[in-house]
């Protein structure tokens, strides 16, 4: 069975808590707070003001540039504020707050009806529609999808890879989508394939989800261009570069992009959103969120309107009893939340509640040079060295040791027997080195 070439770890997948819970629609809350920057790139620019009435699916903020994405209202009601609101990490971010009244949708959105399979739009029309509907990468990185679909001149896409790996422990949102909306997902993938002009679609799934593999294999038998690739379970298989290597055997060159090896990777959630956007005119204003945790009363997979406070989801699933840490996303790459009233955004794949006793890290010891981090690093870097060089502030050496290749997957910290916060430091070093690289590039221009 295929997998990526170097490094990697085997965290226990902990998906049993929520894997059998079917996707449930979460009731619309009384107010939603929709941040204007839910994607990588320039923040969107608000086009509504306090007092405006908005409908579900109405644009409330326009894209702030090419690498940006518009924001749509997830509810119908009245705008009560357009001002900075604290995000999950407590930082104030420009947001639109809407008081909900009823549930009135923009009338262009097709609701209900049978699955639409025929793709009548042209390449350009698909990309522009995806851009208008505010679709971004829903695996967590939230990179605007239309940018990824715009193949730079001189490059050629050869295949589309659908990331159905969901290698983060605990999360089951993508898994449920595969089981429940498999066909929409496949049509969504075909739309994406058409947009980049390829006729080969691989769907990579890890072998810890055998039912999803067989279900999709059955569905895919009707489409010759779609191939399901079962992958050997190993974290971080869902990393873009790792997935491409696992599926195609090609390695994205250091400092390069997936398109350099002819691959475009899209997440399961994104493919579903693309189906809905292109076929049903439905903007991205709701998403599936896994709410889970070992001590949670009823872990669930919820279809949630963007802007719903995370605390509402938590209360719905059993509350904060005995919770020591709340994580937006999975336990490997998700971010700890200090403000649980912060809204669900386009990139929130899960809300994970860690029990108090599992929340604190162990006391760090000293590096014993066991090389477990070197063994675990899927990029073939030397985390122990990067950690030390960052603390010494030697950014030239850091760059020389390819810190810019780090994908921040957390394998090093996970595997360190001395509980060193390797990635905490490496992240700092990487940010500084990336800044220097950008400054150099800007100076050259």
């Amino acid at each position, binding site marked *: 069975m295929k997998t990526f070439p170097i490094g990697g770890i085997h965290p226990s997948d902990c998906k049993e808590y929520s894997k059998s819970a079917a996707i449930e629609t979460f009731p619309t809350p009384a107010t939603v707070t929709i941040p204007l920057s839910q994607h990588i790139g320039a923040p969107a620019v608000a086009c509504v003001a306090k007092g405006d009435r908005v409908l579900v699916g109405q644009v409330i903020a326009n894209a702030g540039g090419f690498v940006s994405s518009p924001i749509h209202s997830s509810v119908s009601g009245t705008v009560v504020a357009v001002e900075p609101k604290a995000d999950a*990490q*407590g*930082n*104030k971010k420009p947001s639109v707050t809407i008081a909900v009244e009823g549930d009135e949708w923009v009338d262009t959105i097709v609701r209900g009806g049978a699955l639409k399979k025929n793709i009548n739009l042209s390449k350009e029309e698909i990309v522009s529609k995806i851009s208008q509907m505010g679709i971004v990468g829903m695996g967590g990185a939230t990179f605007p999808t239309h940018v990824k679909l715009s193949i730079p001149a001189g490059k050629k896409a050869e295949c589309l890879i659908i990331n159905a790996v969901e290698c983060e422990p605990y999360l089951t949102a993508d898994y449920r989508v595969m089981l429940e909306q498999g066909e929409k997902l496949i049509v969504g993938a075909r739309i994406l394939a058409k947009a980049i002009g390829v006729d080969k679609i691989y769907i990579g799934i890890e072998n810890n989800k055998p039912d999803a593999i067989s279900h999709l294999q059955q569905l895919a038998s009707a489409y010759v261009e779609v191939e399901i690739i079962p992958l050997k379970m190993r974290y971080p298989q869902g990393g873009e570069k790792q997935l491409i290597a696992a599926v195609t055997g090609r390695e994205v060159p250091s400092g390069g992009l997936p398109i350099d090896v002819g691959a475009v990777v899209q997440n399961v959630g994104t493919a579903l959103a693309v189906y809905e956007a292109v076929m049903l005119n439905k903007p991205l204003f709701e998403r599936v969120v896994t709410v889970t945790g070992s001590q949670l009363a009823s872990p669930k997979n919820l279809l949630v309107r963007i802007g719903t406070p995370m605390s509402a989801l938590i209360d719905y699933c059993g509350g904060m009893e005995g919770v020591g840490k709340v994580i937006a996303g999975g336990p490997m790459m998700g*971010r*700890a939340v200090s403000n649980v009233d912060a809204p669900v955004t386009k990139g929130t794949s899960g809300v994970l509640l860690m029990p108090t006793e599992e929340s604190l*890290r162990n006391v760090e010891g000293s590096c014993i040079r066991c090389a477990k981090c070197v063994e675990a690093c899927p990029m073939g870097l030397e985390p122990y060295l990067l950690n030390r060089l960052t603390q010494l502030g030697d950014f030239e050496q850091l760059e020389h040791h390819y810190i810019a290749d780090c994908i921040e997957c957390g394998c090093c910290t996970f595997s360190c027997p001395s509980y060193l916060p390797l990635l905490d*430091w490496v992240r*700092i070093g990487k940010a500084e080195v990336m800044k220097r690289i950008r400054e150099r590039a800007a100076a050259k221009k």
Partner: protein
Amino acid sequence: MESLVTTVLIVGGLGALLALLLFLVAKKFYVEEDPRIDEVEKMLPGANCGGCGFAGCRAMSEALVSKDDISALFCPVGGDECMKKVAGYLGKAAPEKEPMVAVVRCAGSCDNRPRNNRFDGAKSCLVASSLYAGETGCPFGCIGLGDCAVKCEFGALSINPVTGLPEVDDEKCTACGACVKACPKGIIELRKKAKRGLKIYVSCVNKDKGAVARKACKVACIGCGKCAKVCPHDAIVVENNLAYIDYSKCKMCRKCVVECPTGAIVECGFPPRKVAENDANSSNKVAE
């Protein structure tokens, strides 16, 4: 006897050969350098702290020797005296700067600023600040993990375990600015070192609106502007809900200190006030 001679010859010959080699190499790779650079370097404190903006004292000396106009160069550690000496030696005009001292502009101790979550990552302000807004409701204030103290080459900064805030030892502080650069929140400022260590400054950098700031921290500047009104020297500006005292204009009259409703303006090194005033002030602070 014969072996003795052989030994002496071999060892002596070898020594002479190596000496010759050393001599030739030194000659061939000799780098012409202005001898004044060495002299200037000796005059500098040799802390290699980088406070001047150069990589170290050597780089600074090279700059001092090579540039005609050295008014932009200043060694904060050596101060005026050192710069005068260097300028005198080089026959250039000495740059003049007032002695400065680092000031920590945050009084958000554990009592004043309740913690509402707990940071558990690498012990570094940089790591914490890049992750999230902070342990308290104030996203501007001191994180207290001591990046400044680590970066201080002179041992002038230390974290007070009771308040959780860094404290500056004015005697040891050389105003090299390493802490200013190290602080990700930009709390530390270099201010004029007044005589007898007198200091008046706004010990807060919170730019939130008054009510928000006050909720997060008892001694936050709420931007009410009372201090600016009372200041007879126009030294105080309020911008973004935050007061700032311009040290070049401040005459240390202390009127603002009494006026501040939250006690965000701090005075140091002054003799105790008259009893009545002192009482009023301290009871005011306790009550808040």
